């Protein structure tokens, strides 16, 4: 049982709009950098970067965060995701960092990502871009740029599929399988 919330066109429009919003709010691309949270946040950040290049002709700095080591449920050892590399090859000082993730849910991933980011330096600001905000926050975190707000039951599962990782672009909602 699953239904499609966004198709490929919807996703592409959302990425365009968010790119414009980022540029508007930060007065251009001069001082911004995009950081994607593994795995699908990275894809989103790369698409935003492409779009921003199209609009402004500027290639902004880009980084990748793996937040595994900062998770608040790591000590429980319930589910240990594979640890991948964090790659942030530029200085954060003076930059406006746009943190990118596919789905915003409890906010715990974003808390971990902010902590991880701060270990690399002191950015001027951290802003949050997500493709889907599905509510149910457990921490005081809100997004700055949202593709689509989707009110959901907590038991449902929202899944973002992106061509770079999943061969197609779409957002689906389904019953939890377990």
């Amino acid at each position, binding site marked *: 049982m699953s239904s499609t919330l966004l198709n490929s066109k919807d996703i592409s429009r959302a990425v365009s709009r968010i790119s414009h919003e980022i540029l508007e709010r930060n007065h251009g691309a001069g001082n911004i950098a995009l950081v994607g949270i593994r795995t699908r946040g990275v894809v989103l950040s790369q698409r935003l970067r492409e779009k921003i290049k199209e609009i402004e002709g500027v290639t902004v700095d880009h980084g990748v965060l793996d937040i595994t080591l900062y998770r608040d449920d790591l000590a429980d050892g*319930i589910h240990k995701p594979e640890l991948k590399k964090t790659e942030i090859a530029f200085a954060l000082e003076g930059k406006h960092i746009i943190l990118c993730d596919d789905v915003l849910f409890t906010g715990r991933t974003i808390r971990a990502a902010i902590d991880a980011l701060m270990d690399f330096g002191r950015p001027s600001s951290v802003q949050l871009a997500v493709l889907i905000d599905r509510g149910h926050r457990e921490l005081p975190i809100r997004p700055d740029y949202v593709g689509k707000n989707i009110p959901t039951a907590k038991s449902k599962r929202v899944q973002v599929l992106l061509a770079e990782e999943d061969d197609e672009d779409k957002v689906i909602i389904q019953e939890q399988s377990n």
Partner: protein
Amino acid sequence: MALSTKNILGTKELTQSDILQILDTADSFKEISTRAIKKVPALRGKTIINLFFEPSTRTRTSFEIAGKRLSADVINISGSTSSTVKGENLIDTARNLEAMSPDILVVRHHCSGAAELLSQFVNSPIINAGDGAHEHPSQALLDLLTIRSHKGDLKGLKVAIVGDVSHSRVARSNIRAMQTMGMKVRVVGPPPLIPVEIERLGVEVSHNLAEAIKDVDVIMVLRIQLERQNQGLLSSLREYSNYFCLTSETLAQAQDDVLIIHPGPVNRGIEIALDVMEGPRSLILDQVTNGVAIRMALFYLLLGENNANPN
């Protein structure tokens, strides 16, 4: 995502997928040591005890740094400052330490099997940091990580392990780990320093350095263990050097892209010449850097395993 073993006692118990998982995790951890703030909160609130009954700078420091970079609390106990000098035996020492609820014990001891013995009496995961002439698994893993980062793939590589194989736990751990990863091993040294029937481990034996290194991808030079050379196995260090010191002249026989590794500490001019040690093929300092990443990976993977929720 879990290792097949609760303790890291030797490479003998590690499967190919265990080793790959450790190497991949260590690869991800390498980046942390290049940050301005070299610390992540992954093991906050965990306690690691380094129990070292033998002298060590590199290994002990490496385990300590690895623990600290993961935010664990690391306690170092060395043989000379522990209650063993008051006559307490190894098992009692370990049991008492365990009563203070550490999360991992790292043990180095001059007796083969010491770590395994302790693992029968304590519940915390144990990492063997060297037991007699038996095993030193974290060294073999960091050697594999170093080789893999230069060669890409381990399978099919040929390695010559040169020197005092008899006394070397590094050689034993490497032979097993390398064979698990599909590598071919040849041991090289004077007959008194090569264990009798070592062929049964599936390795080739050679007593001629120049011949033995011709077709290999990696040369691992072992330390001549000066503290263990009073048994008359060698007539003199000078004679050993004449035949088995890796010099630039001997190295000219090897392939151009051969890698040279050494577990350290190095006896300069005895098993390896100064210019070779500091030359472009030598990865000795890479090994030390990789050692921290390997030990971070072991701590991370073992502590996850320890806390694994069966649901």
